[in-house]
């Protein structure tokens, strides 16, 4: 990237072209920056829009994780112990543990966290989860130790 350094020698138009050619690089950079953010930060901001919010709760997170919705609970696939590998209730595919203490990649990418909460809350509860619910579950999963 440092090879692009002497921008002074380019006109504005040239620079635009350089930027558009480097689109993929920019995307990759954006992706790696996004991964650096803690998914819980944005969720906390969203939760705070409710004035009664007074912090996330480990106990509420654990309860929600085990609460059965229409057919399933989170535990149906992730098991009641998220430190253990789970298994997809339909396809039988192994699901790696959700607890970051065992699987540090978990809950580290905000886009992934949002994608899976949306899908899985729809599957389990037939609705999207609230910011507070998502924060509770993340807080509980992060509280687990070996």
């Amino acid at each position, binding site marked *: 990237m440092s090879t692009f350094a002497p921008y002074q020698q380019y006109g504005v138009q040239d620079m635009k072209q350089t930027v558009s050619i480097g689109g993929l690089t920019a995307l990759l950079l954006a992706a790696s920056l996004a991964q650096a953010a803690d998914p819980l930060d944005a969720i906390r901001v969203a939760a705070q829009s409710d004035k009664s919010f007074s912090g996330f709760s480990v106990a509420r997170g654990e309860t929600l994780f085990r609460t059965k919705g229409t057919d399933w609970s989170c535990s149906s696939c992730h098991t009641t112990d998220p430190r253990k590998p789970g298994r*997809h209730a*339909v*396809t*039988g*595919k192994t699901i790696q543990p959700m607890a970051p203490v065992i699987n540090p990649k978990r809950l580290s990418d905000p886009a992934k966290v949002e*994608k899976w909460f*949306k*899908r*899985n809350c*729809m*599957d389990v509860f037939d609705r999207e989860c609230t910011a507070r619910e998502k924060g509770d579950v993340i807080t509980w999963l992060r509280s687990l130790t070996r």
Partner: protein
Amino acid sequence: MNTPETSARISGFGTTVLSLAIISMSSAAGADSAKNPVPTNPVWQEECGGCHIPYPPRFLPAGSWRLLMGSLEDHFGTDASIDTETAASIETFLVQNAKRKKADGKTDSTAGNAPLRITGTRWFVHEHDEISAAKWKSPAIRSAANCGACHREAEKGSFRERDIKVP
């Protein structure tokens, strides 16, 4: 061990593999042959491989993939929604490498030929006719969607006979 000579050989081999992969991705016959490298795509692998093995594009005709990619919010009863850009890029890969007509290798665009379930296609049923109903239901397999239970290299897109081990 890693002399300049072996490095050169390894990198030469890598180039060959890469070229073969590119040829396979653009050729009609390549995708259906077990001898040729299987077309892969990192986005497809990551996104489709979340809940099941990433099913190879050659398992269904293009029309099937278009229907499936257009209905991810209700994907066989589960929500598999993704953003539209990601969905579009996966759909392009699936359609480009979809099952083709044996006769002329062209994309099969026969009207109405868009089965949604791989397991419901005639070739799938035929290929698995020796597997009993009880075996399908066994704890190690559980679902016909669980290709990896028997096809040990399914995750990599390979379904060769020699990699099959029925649990």
